[in-house]
């Protein structure tokens, strides 16, 4: 998943159905911002940090299984991607932690 996604949603502030920018840390939604009026929803700060730790733990435990399933489905493609993907993980997690801290 990307750390940032956009989608058309209705804004509870300006009432328009417009693009919103969503920020994620791992599987968790951190914030959403209306691209029209800037109205922003945030995940509650303390709750987000606890939820992120649980989520990260779960992702780490399930990661080998997910890679194995991908290897079975697309062996060559996955084997080629695996080293670079593993090398990216620390940076990816560091970015997520920064996102969570900033809220």
């Amino acid at each position, binding site marked *: 998943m990307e750390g940032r996604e956009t*989608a058309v949603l209705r804004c509870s502030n300006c009432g328009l159905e417009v693009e919103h920018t969503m920020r994620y840390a791992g599987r968790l*939604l951190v914030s959403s911002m209306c691209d029209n009026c800037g109205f922003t*929803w945030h995940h509650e700060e303390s709750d987000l940090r606890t939820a992120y730790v649980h989520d990260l733990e779960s992702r780490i435990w399930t990661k080998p299984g997910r890679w194995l399933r991908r290897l079975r489905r697309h062996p060559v493609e996955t084997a080629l991607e695996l080293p670079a993907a593993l090398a990216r993980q620390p940076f990816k997690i560091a970015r997520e932690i920064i996102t969570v801290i900033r809220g």
Partner: protein
Amino acid sequence: MSKGHRPGSVGVVLAAGMGTRVGADGNKAYLPLAGRRMVSWSLDSLAQVPEVTRLVLVIRPDERKRAEQTLDRELPGVKVELVRGGASRHESELRALQYLASDIESGTVDVVLIHDAARPLAGPGTMRAALLVAREFGGAVPALDAPDVVKVGPDGGISPRTERTLVRVQTPQAFRAMPLLRAYLAADREGFEGTDTSSCVERFADVEVRTFQGDERNLKVTYAHDLFLAERLLADAHYRLS
């Protein structure tokens, strides 16, 4: 019957939204929700219903690759047929039914279950309930009481509620396949566009449409805050819909 299709019911998930919008980033059906794209939750729930033998995903024409990648990554081993949607919800439903028409006419599809991708929390239990009610009576719509709804007259005055209870309807909505197909073909001939599946069936088909108990958690993601709520509900359910 199409080659390789087992007889049974078909689950259709509508993810085309308003086809008039352009751009792959705009479709909320592909927003991440608790680790998978929103559309995957609905398809996964339908795939767990034993009576559902085929899954159809209605997509925007320019999102085929995005849909294929999502399905490959998040629902490996689940066969999903992709159908190009139309410019409106009604047109997308019509296209899905036209795609299934030969199997419906041959009798190998008994019930079609239509669900909005924007309702990711409808679990297998709700899907199956819709299907069983439709098999028994003809049509099934999940409904919730709407005690806070009042009738307002043309002058703005509040009218007393009648004895007929007002309800809020949800999806999945399920119908016997043949009357559903005929209703949509008739609506197409007359240029009728319904707001939801049941509105078209009620007007163009002679089948009994029954409501069954909906679920408050089966929310429709409309506002941004709905996503936060959906995420929390999924976490509370340990990411397993029932």
